[in-house]
């Protein structure tokens, strides 16, 4: 174990994950570190194991071999409730509670953590402001009364509510229309920079990966093929990475009239 991995917020050591019903492992021999303050994007097709990787971090799953360390401690040794309250989790469509108002959704974890009412109220307003939603206008609404983009913003606000050191995001912008997605992506960059948050971000969109990631981990068939900075990724000779970059060029060509 190197000095560097000990300081890492998240570290995977030779992690494999398999389920009895499926013969080939879903994750095999994965090694990865995530440093404080960076946004690591896991890029790959659906079924490549990127969501499973994410779920190993907050102990929604435990590895069948190897170990996952968060803040230097094995996830198996963490109290799962404690671990999850220290990691914000955002999924597609936000996974908001449909029977809670926007305020109630955002304030849930602070409430579970026993914050004082005045502090909760201030925090909710601060967060709604941060994700660009007016507290007076949106606070009392239910998720069904919001647009997809607004729901996603609330999902991000909820994940940030108890000031977790780590954010896990699973294709949070996947279901949005291109314009809304673009504006949320810009706001996300802004947000993580301002707050200095560490994030692991899962996507199948290479553009999104290049735009948001401090580093990009490319996954296929349960293996991590490479981990590169965006500029390193653009220069990569790895076959699979080139295939992804080619789709980008096709896009550009088709953009021309």
């Amino acid at each position, binding site marked *: 174990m190197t000095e560097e991995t000990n300081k890492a917020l998240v570290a995977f050591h030779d992690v494999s994950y398999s389920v009895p019903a499926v013969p080939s492992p879903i994750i095999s021999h994965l090694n990865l570190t995530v440093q404080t303050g960076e946004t690591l994007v896991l890029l790959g097709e659906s079924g490549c194991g990127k969501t499973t990787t994410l779920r190993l971090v907050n102990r*929604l799953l435990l590895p069948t071999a190897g170990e996952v360390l968060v803040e230097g401690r094995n996830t198996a040794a963490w109290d799962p*409730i404690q671990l999850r309250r220290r990691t914000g989790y955002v*999924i597609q469509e936000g996974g908001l509670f*449909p029977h809670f108002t926007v305020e109630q959704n955002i304030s*849930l974890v602070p409430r579970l953590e026993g914050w004082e009412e005045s502090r909760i109220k201030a925090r909710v307003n601060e967060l709604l402001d941060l994700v660009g939603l007016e507290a007076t206008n949106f606070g009392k609404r239910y998720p069904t009364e919001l647009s997809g983009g607004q729901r996603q913003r609330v999902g991000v606000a909820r994940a940030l509510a108890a000031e977790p050191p780590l954010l896990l995001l699973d294709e949070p912008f996947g279901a949005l229309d291109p314009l809304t997605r673009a504006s949320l992506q810009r706001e996300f960059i802004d947000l993580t920079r301002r707050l200095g948050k560490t994030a692991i971000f899962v996507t199948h969109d290479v553009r999104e990966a290049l735009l948001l990631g401090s580093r990009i981990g490319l996954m296929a068939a349960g293996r991590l093929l490479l981990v590169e900075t965006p500029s390193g990724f653009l220069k990569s000779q790895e076959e699979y990475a080139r295939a992804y970059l080619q789709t980008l060029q096709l896009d550009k060509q088709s953009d021309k009239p």
Partner: protein
Amino acid sequence: MSFWEFLRQNGGELLTLLREHFVLVVVSTLMAVLIGIPTGILLTRKKALRAPVLGIANIMQTIPSLALFGFLIPLPFLGGIGARTAIVALVVYALLPIIRNTVTGILGVDRNVREAAVAMGMTDSQILWRVELPLAMSVILTGVRVATVISVGVATIAAAVGAGGLGVYIFRGLRQYDNNLLLAGAVPAALMALLADFSLGLLERRFSIKEKKARAHSVWPRVVLIGGVLILVSAVAVLWRAGQKTAATPGQQQKVVIGSKDFTESILLGEIVAQMLEARGAQVQRQFELGGNLSHEALVAGRMDLYPEYTGTAYTAILHHQPITDPRTVYEQVKQEYSDKFKVATSQPLGFENTFAILVRGAEARRLNLKTISDAVPDARSWRAGFGQDFMSRADGYPGFVKAYGLQFREQPHEMDLSLTYIALASGKVDLIAGNSTEGRISALDLFQLEDDKHYFPPYQAIYFVRQDALERLPVLQEVLNKLANAISTDEMRHLNYEVDGNKRTQADVVREWLKARKL
């Protein structure tokens, strides 16, 4: 009598029955909720239990209600006669929809939402109380609504075990062929079902996710909720008081529990003993109108002290002997076996028999000069017959009867409710029926009883069965039974029956008048 007149005269009784019915439904549904929802929650946690438990609940719901009552009566704690047994049965029927909808509702919560809850660091119980139950609530309430509506219906059968409720009017209406009674029982039951459906539907909408909009903060759902809770609380209070009243068992307080079967004559015979005992200062509890053989089971189980029966019924239906024709032998053997097997004493015969009476229209009998069943055999080939379900199925009924006389009818006999056969015969819809020999309408409708010249039907002498321990406890019982030995003739019994069924008077009035006339 018009329906409105009927309601004016019987409003008080109707309200009592309505209240009893309501209490049965509310208490049983509440108990089913208290058992069913936790069971449903458990089944969502323990997958292996799901199929077996739902399977058992499913099977329980298919048990016919009378069979279930019969099974429950001898049981300690759960069983007996009255509201408690009925509530146990109603709970059994209400469980399935509640358990099933709890499971469906919780398992139906969006996977993403549940995963978000887990990932946010909520504990199992926080997820259950704050996410799963609120989101499943409208589906669970649908189950409660279905269970309640089922209960309103099944509770009408509770009258068969003496639990009261609107079924009392329905059974009585069927027996007396009285539409006013039928309507007075059925219409409020239907309204109660609709009301339950509607009000629980409102509650359900309050918990529906589609209705979760900011503008939905109306005061009405809260008013309905609070009102509902108040009604439930008062209903429970009423039942608690009722429960205290019925909790007394025969052993306590020198109280005598008098039972009867669910037809007019049996009720009259029960009422006769009840009034005579009351006149002699005894405290009497009436458990009348019990269906099937429930009276017998209650007597043997020690939950009843006395009820009227017929020697032939006891001999064949309860002691399972082949029918024989000598009245003395049947009586002696019944008396002996009841004493040995059940510690139950048999009174002297009351003086009349209620046997199957093979009846034809009086005009027809006179025209064809018919006296006996054998006389009618040639003509019967062109006749239609109508028989009650009981006659068609019992050992001493239809199959042996046609064989003994070599009878053949024009077509397969019509199987119908016994009380309807008299009207069917009188109006020419059928030409021969098997009625009861003491039926009041035999003379009123000018029907003629053909003599059982081959002595096919076993003797059905009326008697009382009484628990031996009750006789020891209350010497006055023996005194009353002695006075009733050979005191009622067949004609007198027909007259009493007709006063109730034909002239629509209450059993209590008819009995009071008769006791006075006979100076008993």
